[in-house]
């Protein structure tokens, strides 16, 4: 169980691969040294055989036969291990070779040939046959004994070196992968907890010294962000529920009272009419929420085109001028003579500006002024709405952008509390930023939409 898990870790697999590669390299090295040794020995034995043959060829036939015969009984066979003198028909004259080696040619070149002795296993010899001036053939042989011994030594040395090295690498790999495995196991446990609903749990990330810890750190930061978003959603959900419950409970109370006391048709009719108004408010909140969600989730820029901000301002002011007039507010525009154009969705931008102007008029008392300006700050176009109204406290400026936020000063003013969220969503879609500042002379509010 533990072993199969170990085998599945990436670290252990890497170790196995490294061990295999090391073993491979060792085999290759062994092979290289081996062939090199063989080549050297082959070269040396050829030279020795040929030198000896040349030396013997200079002797008289009688002397040669004597030497060969004597050699055969000699035990000094280190350089030349076998020798034989044959006549032209390959019949043995003298020497310790029993018969003419099978397949040997008298061409003065070395041949590797298997020799079958009277007893024991056959053994290879490097043989050289040279025809003497008197027609006899001298055969000299050198065994591979030395080479075989050297090879054996080499093999032993290699294996002796390889086994501990490979074992050590394998052990190291197992230890390392076991450590990695235990860390991954901790992470798995943390993830299981998170999946089970404990969103506050985090992966063990340590000091982020290696890739695994850095990955855990990234995952943790992602979880932080998700937790924030979830908190935000939960908050918004509560706010929605609260904002809907208020008008809905009013509707319920009104209808209930009308039912219990309302005898006349007129009373009932009135109650129903007011209930419908309250329900419209609820529907308004839901519609606004859906609209914001729709704009926020929208990545579409299909409705985008060139929008002249001055024309946009003129359109919105045209719509709001009568209402400003009725409420005793001066609605002014300040537009630069150079056309300021941006890439945007005209319908959404109208909605954005209308919401700002609507807000400004709502929160500006009789006799105040609302100004809509289009300026170009360097190369960035800006849309600015200022009012001389009640203003927004510095510490509240961030909060007013969130959904359903109503400052204490604005509780009495009707509205869904979603207007600025909508403004923010539309601005985001246009990659524009919304900032809230104090109005001119520190009075009222200034909304600045900065397009990139």
């Amino acid at each position: 169980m533990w072993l199969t898990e170990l085998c599945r870790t990436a670290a252990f697999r890497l170790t196995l691969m490294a061990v295999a590669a090391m073993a491979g390299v060792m085999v290759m090295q062994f092979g290289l040294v081996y062939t090199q040794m063989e080549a050297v020995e082959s070269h040396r034995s050829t030279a020795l055989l040929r030198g000896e043959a040349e030396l013997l060829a200079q002797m008289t036939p009688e002397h040669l036969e004597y030497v060969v015969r004597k050699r055969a009984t000699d035990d000094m066979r280190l350089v030349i291990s076998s020798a034989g003198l044959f006549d032209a028909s390959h019949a043995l004259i003298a020497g310790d070779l029993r018969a003419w080696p099978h397949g040997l040619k008298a061409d003065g070149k070395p041949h590797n040939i298997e020799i079958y002795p009277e007893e024991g296993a056959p053994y290879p010899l490097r043989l050289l046959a040279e025809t003497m001036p008197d027609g006899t053939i001298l055969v000299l042989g050198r065994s591979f004994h030395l080479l075989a011994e050297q090879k054996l030594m080499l093999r032993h040395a290699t294996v002796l070196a390889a086994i501990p090295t490979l074992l050590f690498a394998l052990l190291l790999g197992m230890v390392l992968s076991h450590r990695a495995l235990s860390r991954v196991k901790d992470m798995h446990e943390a993830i299981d907890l998170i999946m089970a609903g404990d969103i506050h749990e985090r992966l063990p990330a340590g000091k982020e010294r290696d890739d695994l810890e850095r990955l855990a750190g990234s995952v943790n930061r992602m979880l932080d962000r998700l937790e924030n978003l979830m908190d935000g959603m939960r908050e918004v959900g509560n706010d929605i529920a609260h904002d809907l419950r208020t008008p809905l409970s009013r509707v319920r109370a009104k209808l209930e009272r009308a039912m219990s006391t309302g005898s006349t048709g007129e009373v009932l009719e009135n109650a129903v009419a007011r209930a419908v108004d309250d329900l419209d408010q609820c529907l308004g909140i839901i519609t606004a929420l859906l609209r914001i969600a729709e704009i926020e989730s929208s990545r579409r820029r299909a409705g985008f085109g060139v929008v002249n901000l001055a024309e946009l301002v003129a359109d919105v002011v045209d719509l709001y001028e009568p209402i400003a007039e009725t409420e005793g507010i001066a609605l002014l525009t300040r537009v630069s003579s150079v056309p300021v154009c941006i890439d945007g969705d005209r319908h959404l931008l109208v909605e954005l500006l209308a919401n700002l102007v609507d807000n400004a008029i709502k929160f500006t008392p009789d006799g105040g002024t609302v100004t809509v300006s289009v300026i170009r700050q360097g190369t960035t176009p800006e849309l600015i709405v200022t009012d001389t109204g009640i203003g927004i406290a510095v510490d509240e400026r961030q909060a007013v952008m969130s959904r359903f936020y109503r400052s204490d000063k604005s509780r009495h003013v009707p509205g869904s509390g979603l207007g600025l969220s909508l403004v923010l969503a539309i601005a985001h879609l246009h990659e524009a930023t919304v900032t809230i500042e104090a109005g001119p002379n520190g009075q009222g509010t200034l909304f600045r939409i900065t397009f990139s």
Partner: protein
Amino acid sequence: MTEHTHHDDQHDQSDKQSGRIARGSVLLIEDDSTIAEEIVAELTGHGLDVLHRATGDSGLAAALAGGADVLVVDRLLPGLDGLSVIETLRQRGIRTPVLVLSALSAVDDRVTGLKAGGDDYLTKPFAMEELLARVEALLRRPDDTRSTKLCVGPLEMDLIERRVWRDGREIDLLPREFRLLEYLMRRPDQVLTRSMLLEDVWQYRFIPRTNLVDVHIGKLRRKVDSPGEEPLIKSIRGTGFLLRVAD
């Protein structure tokens, strides 16, 4: 020919049931039975003849059979979807005006709805008065003649010189007031809701506050109806406005 016969058949049936003279016939294709019931009640209550079908396929068959003056089609239907119904009808050359109903408010959906051949688009939830006003508007296509003058009751409008008179008295209007009055004069005696005015006169698809249109109408009304004159621009409670000329 066939279309005409069907038309008459429907009128006969409905006349027998309601005992009223139908002003037009509506084919409603809507799968939600509660909403469908409400719509049928509202429309028949206002003298319209309504045929209801609950699926796209049966609705398309009924529309192809002909007879309806206006189609009210829900976008999302079981089986054949609302937009496909409209597309099929338009491909067959049937030009009956269509009001698309949808629970989707996305601007994109509105555009695709109108592109598929819908003439107007209404997002759920809606007030029944809004639906009625829009169906009526589709039944009575506006007077979009190319004439340079509009004459409605005591009002006379010169579209080229941008001037308006009431019984010979010239009314001085701002450009936006002129546009609003022109829209009303092209649709006399027809209930126009606030969102219809915002959508058609200002091309806005949202209502930031309810009294926005009322203030515009109020300003226009003060100029059109002088003290002592019979008021021409009427408010319809909870619904919208109407330019009354016929007696």
